[in-house]
């Protein structure tokens, strides 16, 4: 169909029919081969080395917004496949998605989700509610279930600023598309257990944007400290974690200088006290 379209130059009738507001549904109808739908994947053999795995992501809300941070490492077995990977995706003005799990599929999913949100917004003249975005992502993960059963597990973390409520929110997912709203903070990926411990101790309800970013870096440092698949701040190569902030003013990626200075604070602190800042006993 798309070939015929490219030939004549005229927009085919499927494009001109009112149809759906969903880009995924539309593409499924006119050109399903372009979707990352790998239903016919051979079911034998191990998928372990087909795509690198991506790791620790942390997110937390602060008064007026939400912070999302991710390390940069991708691993393939015990090999570091990539040192400066970007696992955070700005999906629209007020939301972002981070991925853990099979990198190749996760990146495609994030890209498709981004188009899905924009497409809806352009068609309808208004963006989806944050709740609507969260539900849409759940459906998209569920359609990936066959792949997950074969070992290509992708778990995203969705964060956004809810313009109706005036606050940041965090949604986590399981591989079946189960959707869970997280309060205050959350972490996903292989190093998440360690990151969550750090978040639990350092999180406060009244963090500023910068302090929230600092807490996120502390948590990522702890994750990298104990999980070999999570990369810590690489001072020599100047590769630092990525930090996205979403507030009333929209999505902003912290500049590398900002993150660099925060990361240096964290690393300097660790040279004094390798296990990091402590929380009061009572």
């Amino acid at each position: 169909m798309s070939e015929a379209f490219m030939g004549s130059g005229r927009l085919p009738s499927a494009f001109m029919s009112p149809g759906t507001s969903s880009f995924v549904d539309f593409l499924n109808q006119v050109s399903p081969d372009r979707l990352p739908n790998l239903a016919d994947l051979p079911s034998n053999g191990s998928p372990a080395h087909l795509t690198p795995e991506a790791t620790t992501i942390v997110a937390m809300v602060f008064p007026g917004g939400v912070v999302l941070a991710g390390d940069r490492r991708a691993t393939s077995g015990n090999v570091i496949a990539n040192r400066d990977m970007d696992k955070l995706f700005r999906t629209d003005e007020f939301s972002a998605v981070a991925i853990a799990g099979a990198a190749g599929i996760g990146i495609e999913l994030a890209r498709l989700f981004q188009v899905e949100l924009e497409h809806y917004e352009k068609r309808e003249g208004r963006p989806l509610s944050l709740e609507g975005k969260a539900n849409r992502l759940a459906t998209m993960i569920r359609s990936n279930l066959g792949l997950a059963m074969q070992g290509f597990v992708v778990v995203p973390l969705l964060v956004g600023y809810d313009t109706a409520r005036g606050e940041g929110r965090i949604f986590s997912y399981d591989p079946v598309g189960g959707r869970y709203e997280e309060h205050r903070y959350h972490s996903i990926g292989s190093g998440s257990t360690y990151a969550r411990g750090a978040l639990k101790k350092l999180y406060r309800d009244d963090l500023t944007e910068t302090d929230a970013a600092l807490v996120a870096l502390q948590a990522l440092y702890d994750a990298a400290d104990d999980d070999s698949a999570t990369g810590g701040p690489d001072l020599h190569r100047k590769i630092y974690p990525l930090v996205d902030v979403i507030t009333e003013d929209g999505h902003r990626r912290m500049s590398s200088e900002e993150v660099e200075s925060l990361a240096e604070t964290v690393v300097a602190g660790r040279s004094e006290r390798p296990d990091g800042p402590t929380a009061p006993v009572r």
Partner: protein
Amino acid sequence: MPFYVSPEQIMKDKADYARKGIARGRSAVVLQYDGGILFVADNMSRTLHKISELYDRVAFAAVGRYNEFENLRLAGVRFADMHGYTYDRSDVTGQMLANAYAQTLGAVFTESNKPWEVEIVVGEVGDTPDTDQIYRITFDGSVVDEHDFLAMGGSAERVTAALRERYVKNASLTEALQVAVHGLAHENGERRELQATSLEVAVLERSRPHRKFRRIQGDRLVRMLEQANAAVEETAPQTPDDGGATDGV
């Protein structure tokens, strides 16, 4: 009962029909300013848009029959999103969309009895004013590559003449808006006061990250119109203190 009508006559009748349909509606104008491309439409509705985003750098403006141009807008959004998803975001261009629209309108015009009563503009903001692209596509599928400013719909000639009086290259956004409103006020030969509530205004802003399209509405539009009016009342070419004072026009 067959009878003969020459192809010329058929085409002429169709074109007259489409022109009349378009002339019944109110106008829209598109003009370049120092920071991008400005779209202004005379539109009473706050929800039924004549101006819309197609893709990151590309916007759409139309006059004529709503259901027909809405159909084209929708197809353009789908086309752009599909192309951008298949290849890369930077591969979606205004020229490509203009061509798709031209082919579509051309085919409708020749193949069906009723031509579409629409005229549309596809604008793409570039990295510099020289690389901005503005394409006007008419009901029969012809495409014109425009520069500086253009008007379409209603009494486009009068509006164009009014725009020509005041248009200056590299004007600030406020100045450009003032020129646009001045132009639209000349529709049907009458001089009307255009309020914020009857204007649909949007820009493709060169300096904006990610998606360049932005609507200007509500209080911000009211404030900009007040500034623009104040600037006119001063009449003297001294630049007003509205932040657009650095333009060396």
